[in-house]
């Protein structure tokens, strides 16, 4: 589903954020992007949702070179990608249900249908008492669940999460990852960037290990444990 072919990203004047990365991520797969800060995890995610373009190499999603997409096609691509961030990125002026519904409204779903779907998702994620709450009135874990609901509302084929547990306590972080990987049950691919090795080791899933812009390993859980040690 996602293919990187010898992808490098260089920021001016000469910062090599990613070096010659080649990888494949299959449909329905759950993948951790692990590595210390500055390893290139966020850059890799930005390349996938076309926030950045590669300096060299090609990125294919479902066989299409995303560097060649028009701005309209980029918007259409992003509609199929759910994004979750460390700092939640919810609009403080909107309620939880409005924040979630916004993502559906921008792709042309009616206000009523968007609200209904947003409400159902919030209920599914255990936030049925917080539909009308402002984000700032929610705990960090609850805010991240609202963000996950927003990422899911357009039935994405791919969910990208960048340090989604960075602002959460241990229990909330665990719950957040459980929910994220559960998204695979809907047929979506999930890519989670994190520097938290304890979390990586809890889940039996593939780990792409980055360091200083290099893909140094493509491991499974047991192997990740040994790297962590």
């Amino acid at each position, binding site marked *: 589903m996602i293919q990187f072919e010898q992808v490098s990203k260089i920021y001016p004047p000469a910062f090599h954020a990613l070096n010659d990365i080649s990888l494949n991520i299959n449909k329905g797969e759950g993948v951790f992007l692990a590595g210390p*800060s*500055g390893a290139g*995890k*966020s850059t890799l*995610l*930005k390349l996938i*949702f076309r*926030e*950045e373009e590669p300096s060299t190499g090609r990125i294919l999603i479902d066989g299409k070179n995303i560097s060649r997409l028009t*701005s*309209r096609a980029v*918007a*259409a*691509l*992003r*509609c*199929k*990608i759910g*994004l979750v*961030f*460390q*700092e939640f*990125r919810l*609009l403080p*002026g909107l309620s939880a249900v409005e924040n979630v519904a*916004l*993502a559906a*409204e*921008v*792709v*042309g*779903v*009616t*206000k009523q249908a968007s609200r209904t779907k947003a409400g159902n998702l919030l209920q599914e994620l255990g936030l049925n008492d917080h539909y009308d709450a402002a984000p700032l009135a929610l705990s960090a874990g609850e805010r991240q669940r609202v963000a996950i609901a*927003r990422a899911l509302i*357009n039935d994405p084929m791919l969910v990208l999460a*960048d*340090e989604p547990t*960075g602002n959460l306590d241990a229990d909330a972080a665990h719950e957040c990852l459980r929910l994220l990987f559960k998204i695979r049950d809907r047929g979506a691919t999930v890519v989670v*960037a994190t520097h938290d090795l304890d979390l990586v080791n809890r889940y039996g899933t593939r780990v792409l290990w980055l360091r200083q812009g290099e893909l140094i390993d493509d491991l499974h859980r047991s192997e990740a444990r040994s790297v962590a040690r």
Partner: protein
Amino acid sequence: MKTTLLGFVLRRVGNSLWQLLWTHLLTAVTMAVTLFVFGGFMLLQVNLERLLRVWGDQIQITAYLAKGVGGADAQLLLQRVRSLPEVFLVRLTTQEQAWRDFQTALGSQSGLLDGLPPDVLPASLEIAFKPAQRDSAIIEEFAQRLRREKDVAAVEYPQAWVERLSLIILAVQWVKWIIGGLLFLGTFFIVGNAVKLALLARKEEVEIMQLIGASEQLIQAPFVLEGMIQGLMAGAISLAILWGMFVFLRQALPTLAGVLMPVARPEFLDPTGIALLLAIGALLGAAGSLFSLRRFIKTWKASPRVA
């Protein structure tokens, strides 16, 4: 654009107008000043053109007959002039008639004429032109022909005034576009800055919309629409002030209006002029918004803020 997206855009415009009401109002008032100045020149131009048209319609040549020409000679000249193709109407005023008219015009002061001989005023022909012949070159050439008539002593017509007024109108037109153009340019940047403020206030919202797949058009449309609404508001404000000033001046300066406009009272902008001013406002607002949007939105990188 889909109907649902249009509804979404309109809701966002409504929210923004409400949330940033004072910013929008201030911008609209600033634009209104520009539109008021421009509208003022439009109004001046419209009324001067109207005055010129009225004068043009009334333009006539007065040919004063030579001393002693009257009776049969005057009738012959009248017939000859009446047969000319340019002439719409010609009226002979005899010396006696001219004297009586003068006395009537003086009214209670007609005693001033006591002692003067009644033939002191010359007989005259007042000649009006067919509409198609009311051209300064034709009239000038016609006047020259009349001057060559042996029975005609002098020929007068208000051509100089008409030409001067035409020049004034041309000047007003140029001033309107030069001053208007400079003001539009200034307003364009003011609107651009107001939109920049609105954009900065909603930077996070714009970034999030980019991230969740909103198209560039969907992000830009509410701002452009807001600019247009501001422009229309500004147009309406400027028209209201113009109307107020117009009514005030028309009432406060009746004498001046009477002198300048003996036949036609000053008039306000017609529906086309009003629509033009509103359209310029809307265009100015939309263009200012687009200018800012293109500069700023593309420079913002919607991205997760983690290295």
